[in-house]
């Protein structure tokens, strides 16, 4: 226990160690996070009237970001499956980065729900009267927090074992890895059920939204991970195996194509039949009665996703730069499509046919930036700590020293100890 306390203290101190670029990055994130906190304090005083939301469009940017981030979190399993189900060893260490991303993404998603609540002071009511299993929101509370705990356990345990230079006990984490795989699919499915289960909102009341959620998540999440790995490779001594990037790249490409296909199917079904239910889609894609706030956004998203798909399919373009651009396109495109493009049109027109457009306020936008900055801050710290620990440069018997080379007895995460380090 005492040893574990010392580990945490060392991690805390290590999070402040880095060169000037690291410090600028962390300072920037802290400043943005504090601006977000300031904006949230204003919202707490004035109420949600500080946002652009209305009784007509009662969910906006917060829930849009929440939805996107649940996808990012679920996408961590796309690294886990090749490793543990298909025994692809090159990816083994990288699983940790995927799961650390999941932890940061779930924390951000939960924060977005909290800032969306009108009465966060009544948070404890969830524990005193929980409408389970009737309300899908209670399912979401369970699966999101469960997923957070699972991933915290898996990463925390593996990193701590590397720190103690002892091989992790298989029985202590492998079962959780498999639970986490199923659980990741559940967080996405349940979040989609939140929306598709509402009969009064025809835009959401469509079964294909659920698989579309999964496909877009499995494109955006691994695309973000590729960007992270390229950054890690560039700025640290950590060597990311090429095979890892290649595997992620195929996952991204396939998921993106499936996502575009399902999007097309949905748009066709709605628009060709042309029933009154299609009006939200018309609003999103073309605008109705002169209201077209979302039109430039959704076409940007579609263009970015199509461009990225073409880019990834052309083999000549396999340079890092081209791939980073494609991945950034995917992340941004899916953020628009699954965020604003999925949440806001369901409210336009209102159930009584009224068209009220939603425009977020600056205070609302600042809160969103604040939460993203806080999440990236957490993720950067997680990565900052786990890299030297995993490469054996900070262990229980040795303080962190940037001058030391990687330990020859590098702690391996392989349960059958040593096979990877020697190989």
């Amino acid at each position, binding site marked *: 226990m005492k040893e574990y306390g010392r580990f945490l203290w060392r991690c805390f101190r290590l999070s402040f160690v880095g060169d000037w670029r690291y410090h600028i990055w962390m300072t920037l994130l802290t400043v943005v996070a504090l601006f977000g*906190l300031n904006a949230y304090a204003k919202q707490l*005083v*004035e*109420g949600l009237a500080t946002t652009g939301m209305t009784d007509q469009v009662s969910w906006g940017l917060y829930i849009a970001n929440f939805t996107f981030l649940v996808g990012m979190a679920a996408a961590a399993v796309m690294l886990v499956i090749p490793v543990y189900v298909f025994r692809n060893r090159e990816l083994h260490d990288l699983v940790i980065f995927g799961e650390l991303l999941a932890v940061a993404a779930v924390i951000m998603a939960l924060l977005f729900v909290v800032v969306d609540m009108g009465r966060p*002071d009544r948070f404890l009511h969830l524990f005193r*009267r929980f*409408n389970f299993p009737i309300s899908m929101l209670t399912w979401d509370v369970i699966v999101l927090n469960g997923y957070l705990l699972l991933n915290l356990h898996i990463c925390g345990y593996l990193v701590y074992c590397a720190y103690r230079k002892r091989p992790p006990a298989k029985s202590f984490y492998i079962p959780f890895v498999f639970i986490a795989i199923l659980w990741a699919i559940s967080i996405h499915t349940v979040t989609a059920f939140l929306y598709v289960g*509402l009969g009064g*909102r025809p835009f959401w009341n469509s079964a294909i939204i659920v698989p579309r959620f999964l496909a877009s998540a499995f494109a955006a999440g691994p695309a973000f991970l590729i960007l992270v790995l390229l950054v890690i490779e560039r700025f640290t001594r950590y060597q990311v195996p090429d095979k890892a990037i290649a595997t992620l790249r195929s996952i991204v490409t396939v998921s993106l194509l499936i996502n575009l296909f399902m999007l097309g199917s949905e748009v066709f079904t709605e628009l060709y039949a042309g029933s009154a239910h299609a009006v939200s889609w018309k609003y999103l894609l073309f605008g109705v009665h002169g209201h077209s706030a979302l039109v430039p956004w959704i076409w940007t998203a579609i263009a970015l996703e199509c461009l990225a798909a073409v880019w990834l399919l052309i083999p000549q373009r396999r340079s890092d730069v081209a791939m980073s651009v494609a991945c950034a396109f995917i992340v941004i495109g899916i953020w628009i499509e699954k965020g604003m493009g999925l949440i806001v049109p369901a409210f336009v027109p209102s159930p009584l*046919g009224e068209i009220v457009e939603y425009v977020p306020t600056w205070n609302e936008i600042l809160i969103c930036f604040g939460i993203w900055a806080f999440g990236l801050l957490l993720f950067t710290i997680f990565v900052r700590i786990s890299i030297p620990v995993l490469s054996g440069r900070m262990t229980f018997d040795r303080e962190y020293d940037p001058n030391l080379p990687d330990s020859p007895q590098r702690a391996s995460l392989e349960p059958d100890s040593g096979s990877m380090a020697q190989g």
Partner: protein
Amino acid sequence: MQDIEQPRADAPHQGGLGMSRRSFLRHSGTALGGMAAAAAALKPLMELQDEDIPSVDAFIQKHYKEMDEAEMAQALARISAKVEERFGIEPNLRDIKPKEGVEFVYALNLSRCIGCRKCVYACVDENNQSRSPELQYIRVLEMPKGTLDLEAGNHDYDRPTVPSDDHFYMPVQCHQCADPPCTKVCPVEATWQEPDGITVVDYDWCIGCRYCEAACPYWARRFNFTKPGLEPEDVNPDMSYLSNRPREAGVMEKCHFCLHRTREGKLPACLEVCPVGARKFGNVLDPESEVSQILKNKRIFVLKEDVGTLPRFFYYFDERYPRSGAVEEG
């Protein structure tokens, strides 16, 4: 590219995390600066007023269905004191239970409604709704004759006199569904259907997630995006726990068929004010009641029957050519 983990060339070798006196001072400075920045970020919270911060009693108050009589009396006393403190008016606040053998139903005659919106404002006056920003439970749609497509309706019609000859008028409020999607989705059971068919909200339990507002197919729910603006001279002191007591910021509210009136044998405020008698209300379990007769004899319909929520709010038109006599088929 330079390695981020390399120490600066000019930095003295400190053995990793070892701390010199200079670095200790620097770290303390950073910590102090960080705390000052966090405090500055939280400064807007200083503007919170005492009455907006929940008291301990309010914080530990139980869910409506879990309170026994003594606890309810305590809650009512606390809320009354708060109303008196804020508005200088002693309210007649009580908790009125539903009556056995009663199921309330509303019927609205579209042939009669002239779109005067008197119901909208009578409702606001009766139920202590926020005047600034304006919050209303009833929305009247001006519909062009020849369609029931809600998207063709005009919500913002503004005429010197009503009705317009080319339109009919359709007021919409909570339909008090028998299978309400709004209560299903609430994560904390802050809203539920009472035995007499009225869906209510415990304003002291709602966490303000607005999931019910997303679930409602009739746009019947309203959210207090900020503290409701209500002047003392506008307060209706006749209040009940589940209906028209003043609300706080961040909670949901909705039409409750004026349950503080109707459970005591009176009629809803929107009905009483209607100048043309378009609104009918009563107990559907009583076969002799006016609403039972209307449901039996008129050609009634409900909005959006396809969403399957079984509304207790019915619309009908007067028949211009009542059927006379029997005609042989074929």
